[in-house]
């Protein structure tokens, strides 16, 4: 068999094993009985509506914010972008439920700023708070994908427009943004699908205001014991989410048929001169950037330094005990090393798998390509708990239960979509000519693909893999059902502290690994070399 079909078969086998099987197990669980009437009675309709509109709004918001940041940081001459980039990426490193706790410090009723000003500026509980936090925790993903897309836009087109007399905004509006369309679409779909499944934010900010999403509804059925067969019921909600996921991925697919354009990546990127607006833009960007990122970090630090909530913050009361106790806890140390190992392994596997799948679905014409994309993206739409259930059962049948392997498998299943979405846009943009040139020079079809287009997509795959690593290292809901003695993860440790009512130590722990993460990012992230 020729090399390319062989690879396709191999990829499909992996996808069947790691993606289709666990999802099928969930569907099979749901099919065991008709739970829809019970669910409708319990407010399924409202939850679907709440999930849908917060998801769409937050994905739209994240796409706008993430794109604006990408343009600002990578394409303008605003000052201090290298450091600013680190701050702006920091929400990636804070687990969403910890982010929610941190923002509660600032905008909860009678808390933080609301107390400081003696009047309620903003009550964070409710749909608006949920949407805001979802935007905040997903725009960095958009940034990484759009930044990768921006790099593949040839600057000669922008320069041509410039030469013809177009101003910065005209170039942006008529050249850059239209060319970014595939990347924007990838980013929008990914954040929409991922926000659909987010649990921590609606749990902490939505539930107290009686605002229920599908993910918190799952939790409610799991916890309360008010339904006869919780596993079957939540699997049914999982299937509802699968349908929503299928709808959004299909929409993505339909739109992307018109969005695709083949471009040649040439030369250095253009930096727009902001002119007189340079300093105002820089200042506004820094103020906003610091407000949304340092704000919650300060909130966390405030919490972490106090021994307990309600203790006044003075030099006498603050203590490093929460940090000391976190480090002294053997399970935290174990969870840290497990999470780092799992995150790096998942990043490597997802990076390679996502890169190959991206090549297959964008660069070859084959009937099953859409199905392949769909299958890889779908697990992202499922709350981690449901992926956990699927993998738990799969693990029992394959003998990997209670080992690290089952968690690693679940991570690959849950996070490969991050890499696929990061590579799809740049891959779609590469012209067919380069592969043809390689083939003319005698390369086989697979080699021509890998050595030309494939090689060009490696930076995007790497960005995607970094996203996988930072997401997996703080991940909670996938692993909570799969851990065993010796295979606990960092996210589960933080969550256990939070559940035990120990918010202060949970804050200390999350603050420590946010800082470790920022340092790690600082070492890997370099600003693109760009001439101005």
């Amino acid at each position, binding site marked *: 068999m020729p090399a390319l079909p062989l690879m396709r078969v191999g990829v499909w086998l992996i996808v069947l094993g790691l993606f289709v099987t666990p999802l099928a197990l969930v569907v099979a669980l749901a099919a065991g009985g008709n739970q829809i009437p019970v669910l409708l009675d319990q407010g399924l309709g409202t939850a679907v509506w709440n999930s849908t509109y917060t998801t769409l709004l937050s994905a739209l918001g994240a796409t706008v914010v993430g794109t604006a940041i990408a343009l600002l940081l990578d394409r303008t001459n605003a000052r201090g972008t290298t450091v600013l980039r680190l701050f702006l990426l920091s929400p990636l490193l804070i687990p969403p439920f910890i982010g929610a706790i941190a923002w509660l410090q600032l905008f*909860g009723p009678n808390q933080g700023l609301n107390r400081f000003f003696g009047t309620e500026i903003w009550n964070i509980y409710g749909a608006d708070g949920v949407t805001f936090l979802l935007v905040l925790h997903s725009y960095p993903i958009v940034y990484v994908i759009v930044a*990768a897309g921006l790099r593949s836009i040839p600057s000669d087109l922008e320069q041509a427009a410039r030469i013809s007399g177009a101003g910065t905004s005209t170039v942006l509006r008529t050249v850059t943004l239209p060319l970014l369309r595939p990347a924007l679409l990838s980013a929008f779909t990914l954040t929409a699908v991922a926000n659909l499944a987010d649990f921590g934010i609606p*749990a*902490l900010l939505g*539930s*107290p205001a*009686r605002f229920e999403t599908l993910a918190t509804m799952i*939790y*409610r059925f*799991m*916890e*309360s*014991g*008010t339904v006869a067969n*919780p*596993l079957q019921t*939540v699997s049914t909600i999982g299937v509802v989410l699968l349908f929503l996921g299928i709808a959004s991925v299909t929409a993505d697919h339909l739109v992307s048929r018109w969005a695709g354009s083949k471009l040649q990546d040439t030369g250095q*990127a253009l930096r727009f001169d902001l002119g007189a607006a340079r300093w105002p833009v820089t200042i506004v960007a820094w103020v906003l950037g610091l407000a949304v990122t340092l704000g919650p970090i300060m909130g966390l630090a405030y919490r972490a330094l106090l*021994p*307990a*909530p*309600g*203790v006044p913050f003075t030099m006498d009361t603050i203590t490093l005990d929460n940090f000391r106790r976190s480090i002294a*806890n053997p399970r935290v140390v174990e969870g840290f090393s497990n999470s*780092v*190992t*799992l995150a*790096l*392994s998942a*990043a*490597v*596997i997802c990076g390679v798998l996502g890169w190959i799948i991206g090549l297959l679905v964008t660069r070859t014409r084959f009937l099953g390509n859409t199905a392949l994309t769909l299958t890889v993206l779908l697990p992202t739409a499922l709350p981690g*708990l449901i992926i956990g*259930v699927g993998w*738990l*059962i799969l693990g*029992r*049948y394959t003998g990997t*239960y*209670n*080992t*690290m*392997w089952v968690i*690693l498998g679940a991570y690959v299943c849950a996070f490969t979509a991050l890499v696929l979405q990061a590579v799809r846009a740049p891959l779609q943009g590469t012209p067919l000519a380069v592969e043809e040139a390689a083939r003319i020079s005698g390369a086989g079809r697979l080699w021509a693909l890998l050595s030309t287009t494939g090689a060009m997509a490696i*930076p995007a795959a*790497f960005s995607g893999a970094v996203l996988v690593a930072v997401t997996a290292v703080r991940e909670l809901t996938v692993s*909570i*059902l799969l851990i*065993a*003695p*010796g295979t606990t993860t960092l996210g589960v440790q933080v969550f*256990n502290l939070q*559940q*035990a*009512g*120990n*918010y202060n130590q949970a804050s200390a722990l999350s603050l420590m690994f946010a800082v470790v993460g920022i340092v790690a990012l600082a070492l*890997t992230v*370099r600003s*693109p070399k760009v001439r101005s």
Partner: protein
Amino acid sequence: MRHFFSRRTTLAVTAVGASAALLVACSEPAEDTATTAAETTAAENGTASTAAATGETTTITVYTSEPEEKVDEINAAFEAANPDIKVEVYRAGTGDLNARIAAEKESGSIEADVLWAADSATFETYKAAGDLAELQDVDTAGLIEEAVDADNHYVGTRIIPTVIAYNTDIIDEADAPQSWADLVDPKYAGQLVMPDPAVSGAAAFNASVWKNDEQLGEDWINTLGENQPMIAQSNGPTSQEIAGGGHPVGVVVDYLIRDLADAGSPVAAVYPTEGAPYITEPAGVFEASDNKEAAERYINFLLSEEGQQIAVEQAYLPVREDVGTPEGTPPLHEIALMTPDLQVVTDDKDAAVELFQNAMQ
């Protein structure tokens, strides 16, 4: 090519990642062998009741919702007293425990030996499904009657009452509410916080107890709703909200308030005069367990004077009268508990949750 990540660091990170992957690949089989060894030991234990004599170690697995730090202390003491038994713990919230158990049943049999979590209602469900073994050698003499199951399939290990708590910076001790009836006073409008009965099993139980109480009943729940309490997800966030002062008066389990007060938070608990609904965090042995004898020894330790002493030090109310109560807490017999008919309360739970939700809209 222009990179978001510089090429050198790309290489370095890839190398680190690859070696990490290799490390996992190398270390994992070893762990597998260890698991297999443990499983073999476990399998042998059907015949190894004499394990202690021959110096073999039995490993039991406990599924619990106890906070990790607390279960660590218990296990250390247990293993010191029982060197032939090793305890492994899977710790998660009750809902996650239920999910794990259900998924294990779906694909074979339950892997744990001991379940130690939640409330009688949860255990009644497992008992009805035939998942729990009848306890053979668990010593319930000396326990208060609230802890004992008549069918002897599980036994309560702590008394966890739900009480009224308040922030002492904001509310004077003299003004603090003393009874459930006090909470409907309009002066507490917008000041209250309580856990969500639709999410927390214990809170659902409480709602049903209140609804079926002669003095309180539906009227009390409806009037309470007029004070617009904040509904937090569960007990943890509720206690934080009280201590932080966001809502200075709340309804919450008592030990969280003692924990916070010990750590310095300005909070205090009041045992309501009408009585407090409570759960007992029972322990039971799974029918599928191969280590029933070791599992029962573990439960016996939880109930023993030493085990209960630890519970008291960990700010819990014990299930024995002879170990005292945590500092600053009235003695066990002075605390009024609401002891309704368990069957009535369980059957009426769904209706109570619905009533509660409608009242709090």
